[in-house]
């Protein structure tokens, strides 16, 4: 896990309303994946905007957020880019959210507090899967 076999560049959009969580996550993903281009947004609305701008490979998003939540954002992104890979990172095991997101389709549904090693493994897996699927 210390090094990636491919080292192929990819991009990732982080959508998280908590600034500290957002910053650290970005920092850690960058540390683990130096080949990754990272975009950060503090809510769904901003996320959608950034997605439209950069079309990242992976969208790592929280669900509960002001302005526009993760589900709504994902719905709109799906309309733009149906093949986008989603990694959901949420604090709530809410079945309703899970079902709604399942309908949209996700690669992984992770629970907070985040375990970075798990997150890294998921990013690797989803990145590969996404690449294979695309």
């Amino acid at each position: 896990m210390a090094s990636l076999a491919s080292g192929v560049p990819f991009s990732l959009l982080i959508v998280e309303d908590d600034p500290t969580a957002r910053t650290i996550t970005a920092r850690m993903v960058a540390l683990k994946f130096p080949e990754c281009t990272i975009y950060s947004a503090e809510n769904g609305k901003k996320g959608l905007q950034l997605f439209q701008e950069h079309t990242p490979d992976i969208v790592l998003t929280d669900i509960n957020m002001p302005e526009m939540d993760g589900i709504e954002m994902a719905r709109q992104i799906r309309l733009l880019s149906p093949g986008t890979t989603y990694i959901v990172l949420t604090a709530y095991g809410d079945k309703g959210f899970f079902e709604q997101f399942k309908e949209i389709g996700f690669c992984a549904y992770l629970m907070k507090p985040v375990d970075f090693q798990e997150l890294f493994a998921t990013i690797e897996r989803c990145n590969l899967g996404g690449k294979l699927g695309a």
Partner: protein
Amino acid sequence: MSAAAAAVANSWTLSRAISERIARLRVGASAIGGGNLQYRIDAGDGDEFAELSRAFNAMTERLSASHVALESEIVERKAAEDELRQSEDRFRTMANAIPQLAWVARADGFIYWYNQRWYEYTGMTAEQMEGWGWQQVHDPQLLPGVLQQWKGSIASGEPFEMVFPLRGGDGKFRQFLTRVRPLNDAQGEVVQWFGTNTDVSELKRAEDALLKLNEELEMRVALRTGELEETRVELEAQNAELQEAYRDQEEQSAERIRILQELRQKEQLLLQQSRMAAMGEMLMNISHQWRQPLNVLGMEVQELGLTYKYGGFSEEMLDGNIQKAMEIIQHLSGTIGDFQDFLAPDKVKAPFRVDEVIRKTVALMKENLEDQGIQILISSQGAPQIIGYPGAYGQVVMNLLTNAKDAFLERGVTGAMITVHSWVEKERAVATISDNAGGIPEEILQRIFDAYFTTKELGKGTGVGLFLSKTIIEKNMGGRLLVRNVGAGAEFRIEV
């Protein structure tokens, strides 16, 4: 005679001496014969004449003595006869004077004397009554019995006593007590019977009356006893009824107590449920408040490991992350205190700032509300302060905020907003909590404070929250909790 005359004629001289002495004898005899027993004859001495006169005088002497004795005896007997007559007169006078009928009979029962009262009463004559004539005034029916007893007494000499009726001169019978006593001689033989008849009709009547009275009394006593018995039976019945009623009452009371206990148990259960619901709500608030800081805390710690491993680790970073981690830990610790304070029951009434309690309560819920997309605005004016139970007040605020949140989620309201405003009005602290969740239907507006009334889905609401809130504000703190629809939603008003 002729011989004497011849003698006289023959010898006058001779005869003169004899005749003179005879004359003396004749005079003496005549005097004595006339009653002069003191007279003594003197016929000279020495011859037959003298002898004769001596004998004559002696005889006179004896006669005189016997006469004296006889006369004294006559006087004595006369006195005794007088005495007897007087005694008898006294007896009769007395016997006539007494009010009873009285009579005297011979030893054989022959009545020879009745007193005056007898004749007066019977109206009979002595001739009709003498001997056994008295039977005429007896009741023929009872007479045989009377005769039998009377003859028995005559035969035995024993006193007689009996009550029987005697007919009066008016033809009416009256009861008499008859007593007869014998008079005995020295040998004990009955000489006479003395009888009295005492009119006891009055006595008898009195006795009868007494008897009758007694009977009447007895009857009355019996009657009264009967009445008393009736009353007693009645009272007993009443007593039994009362006891029955008492038992019924007791049973009813027991039933009532049972129902009350059941109600209390139900109430306890609901209170328990509502407390559980509040705790659940609280836990939800805690989880909303804690998940994000815990996530960040986890990240701060992991960053140290990851930078150490992949590069970028520095002492500066270590200190920075530790400081941030400690800040989060302090924050979490503080929120535990807030929740603890909030849940701790108020022991005594104390002065507190209403706006302060609202601010703290909202702080506990803020994350929860915001995570649900609900905005909350707080404002206050005039530092409203009251004396009461701050914890209970906070619970009411939380209950109202939770209800608003549930209404928003249920109705899927966008742009959900809760406004909490507190101020002072007429020396009272007023707080309003309004939402824009669409309000409460007018038809249930007045029922929402009722116990067990709920509009929430089965299993979500106990119907106790608003009831308890009203109880806390109105009963425990003497205030008012009101509701009305304002604009786009409901407005609750707490006035203390």
